[in-house]
């Protein structure tokens, strides 16, 4: 870290600590316009709402219900996220794979642009919307496993925790602060965990480690919420993200 950053870093750390402490067991504060990221100009103005938006409910300029969103699963295109730390960007092949079979929109300017890249076999230089400092390693795969695969929550809801309502956007814009304090505020909340079997061990857990799921500080401690579900906090080991 640069020397001149040290003091602000401590200060920020301290403020964050106080903030987090105060925020224990509270919902993260709602984001305001100030927390939004900048509007990023992309080489092609990709319409997320068209691909991921709900059928018929997307407010389209021409209000034609037949032209609603297609409710495509986020993971159909963002296929790396469930398999890797990094979400990556879908290869151009992915776009073309569908669009070569959709002649109706082939002459739209954005699609024409898309095929220009394809014909030149050139990757589209997308701009990064969610940038993290280089010493942070957020793990997409783990979050998808935990909330989508193990807990069965809806994909758009889970992705939306951090990325906001992308299905209502054209090109994405950062919706959440994505600061450490913001990350930690969620990790300090009690989250419902998967059902325990008769031995009190969560499904898939091992007898050797009752904490197979919580190898960091917070053992679930058999806490149950009002609905009687077993809950636990997220891990809070610095070395999980900073290494």
């Amino acid at each position, binding site marked *: 870290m640069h020397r001149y950053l040290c003091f602000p870093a401590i200060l920020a750390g301290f403020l964050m600590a106080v903030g987090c402490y105060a925020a224990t067991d509270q919902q993260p504060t709602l984001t305001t316009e100030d927390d939004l990221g900048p509007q990023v100009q992309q080489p092609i103005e990709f319409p997320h709402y068209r691909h991921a938006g709900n059928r018929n409910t997307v407010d389209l300029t021409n209000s034609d219900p037949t032209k609603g969103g297609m409710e495509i699963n986020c993971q159909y295109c963002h296929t790396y996220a469930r398999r*890797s730390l*990094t979400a990556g960007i879908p290869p151009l092949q992915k776009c073309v794979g569908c669009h070569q079979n959709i002649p109706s929109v082939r002459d739209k300017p954005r699609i024409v642009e898309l095929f220009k890249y394809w014909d030149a076999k050139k990757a589209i230089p997308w701009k990064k919307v969610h940038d993290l400092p280089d010493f942070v390693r957020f793990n997409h795969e783990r979050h998808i496993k935990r909330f989508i695969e193990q807990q069965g929550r809806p994909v758009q809801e889970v992705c939306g925790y951090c990325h906001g309502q992308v299905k209502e956007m054209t090109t994405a814009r950062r919706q959440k602060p994505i600061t450490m304090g913001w990350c930690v505020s969620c990790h300090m909340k009690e989250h419902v965990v998967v059902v325990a079997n008769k031995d009190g061990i969560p499904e898939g857990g091992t007898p050797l480690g009752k904490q197979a799921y919580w190898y960091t500080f917070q053992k679930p401690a058999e806490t149950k919420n009002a609905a009687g579900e077993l809950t636990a906090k997220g891990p809070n080991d610095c070395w999980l993200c900073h290494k």
Partner: protein
Amino acid sequence: MIDSDSVKNLAGHPFDRRDFLKVLGWGGAAAALSGCGNTSIEDGKETVVSYVEAKDYVIPGVAVYFNSTCAQCDAGCSITGKIREGRVLKLEGNPESPINKGKLCGLGQAAVQHHYNPDRVREPLLRKGDKGEAISWEKAYALINEKLAGVKGEEIALLSGDVSGHQKVLLGNYMDSLGSKNHFVYEAVSPAVVRAANLKFYGVEMPRYRIDKAKVVLSFGADFLGTWVSPVHFAQQYAAFRKGVDGQRGVLIQAESKMTLTGANADRWLAVRPGTEGILALGIINALGVSTGDVAELVKDYDKARVSRDTGVEPSNIDKIAALLKLRSPSLVLAGGAAEGYVHGMQNAAAINLLNQVLGNVGKTIEAPVSVPFPQMAPSKGRTAALKDLNDGLAAGKYKVLFNVATNPVFTAPASYKFRDNMAKAGFKVAFAHYLDETALQADLVLPLDSEMEDWGTHVPEYLADTVQINIQQPLMERLHANTRGMGDILLALVKQRRAEEYKAFDDYYGYLRSAVLQNKAALGGAGSDDDTFWNDTLSNGIVKLSGASGALSLKVDVSGLKLPAPKEIDEQYPMNLIPAVTSNLRDGRHTNQPWIQESPDPLTTIVWDSWVEMHPKMALQLGIVEGDIVKVTSKTGSVSAQVYLFPGIYPDAVSIPIGRGHDAMGRYAKGYGVNPFEIMDAVFESATGELAMHETRVNITKTGQRVIVVKDEGPAGGRQMGRKIAARVSTDQVDLSKEV
């Protein structure tokens, strides 16, 4: 490992493969390259580079692994490269290889720094006065063709290092097409004398040494853990040897004049007067007292008192060793660099081999090698005598065209050869090079080579473990510089100039290799599988393993010619022996420009980034020298000046300077660090083989009055033993190893 289906897709279509191997931009996988530098969040500033088309198994952020072969030395370790976003990041050993079984030495790991080296040659360069002018490959090939016109076959010479596999075949064909038989295979550091002695004694150059089966290993300067033949393989054997046969831990005794890494691991290290290794071997045979006939006759004069006087080894130690060798069988006796580097090197090696025979080790710990079914692919091993022959030819003006394949004789020839001057006598000199090293700088045309991580190839190691193995080399990433070429591709292009018809079916070396391998599919164990499957499996494995026939050694004991000279008288003018040390990091100096190699401490002295003159503390005391003194080491040939390091692991009459540093070209990490002992090495040759006798140089030492701080890892002078107690030690009678996990 990726599954075979993916490999199939990948390898079947070289074009796709290249697409995959292309370097993905930083942003594509959140690659952290500036660390704490980038603490701010800069949404929308960075571009994320993505793929146009991607294979299913290519996931940004997840590594893909490919098998290939290490080319840092010629031991033939198989490697597995870790590739992320199209960049090779790290090399590991391939667990499937019987040679290195998943392990890799530091030198092998540093190969990535060779690949990414900023000082690699990037364009074909044509000499224009003192400068090199970048030209195109077409022009370079045309130029070679033009210069070869009208030149007779015997006027063309080619110098290369160890070569095997299809590259050797192609090289042979090219030389054949030129009508030349002048292919000189040269390695500056090679056990050529031991090979010759083995051939005479066992009928093979390199038998299989089974350190893991031996209960006692007595090594005469063979640094099998550091530099000798196949160090990673022997290190694994050594580990088994230490664990012991039937719970009895193996005992290692090392006899040499200057301690090597292997010597540092010995239970008993014997400081031997330089050149008397053979006498010690005969003395031990005498002390064993079991010989009859010729052998008994031969050793009868080598009684303890005489041997002790000649070699400087205590009589009690000779007794102890003989007793131990008698008690624990089988044992194994090895002859290495320290024994062979003299005029009578062959005699030393023969005496040592005889000791093996007397101990009954042949057939027990020395086995016949497995024979390679494709003799045309078997390795040609380098000899120093080859350089001598080439040099003589060059001096006589015999050669008009000289090709040099990535060797550096200007650096590794003794100064008395005057190789640089003789090389100038060849009319047209082509260097295939990775760096602009000392030799490439003398060339008229420098052609840049791919690194081992960009090139295709096959290699057959000289020292094979249990089975015959043909190692596959394949690109681990896209070519880093657009204008480098693989040696195979270059040879193919050159041979096409002569025999276009014969090679017209092959677009590139990849195509040649694939069809050559598939032609022998059945012999390579692929009978029954279709071409694509077999080829893809081969690439996926990185090794073709074949069961080879392994007969018995045809032992030929003939002691009639065995005659060892008495130790040399002290030469008043040059009283010290110079021992040019081969270290495990630096070898012959071709890797000096890899910074990890420069910065990893020499295992024995812990010195980094510089050369040193190793001297026994007692001798230094006599001469009034302390650590860090700059001394001038003068031989009949010349002199060099370097810092002194006091080191007790050396015979007091000897000084040692490591080989490999002292480059005055090559690159930013090599140039200007240390001195080159070849500059003062006398041109003395082993009498039977004509190999350079590297240990025969005698020198004197004079103080220059300057003193420096020795840059080393162990801390300041005299402080090295501060923490001795932390490295605890116990003797065998105090522990029971059989109980251990």
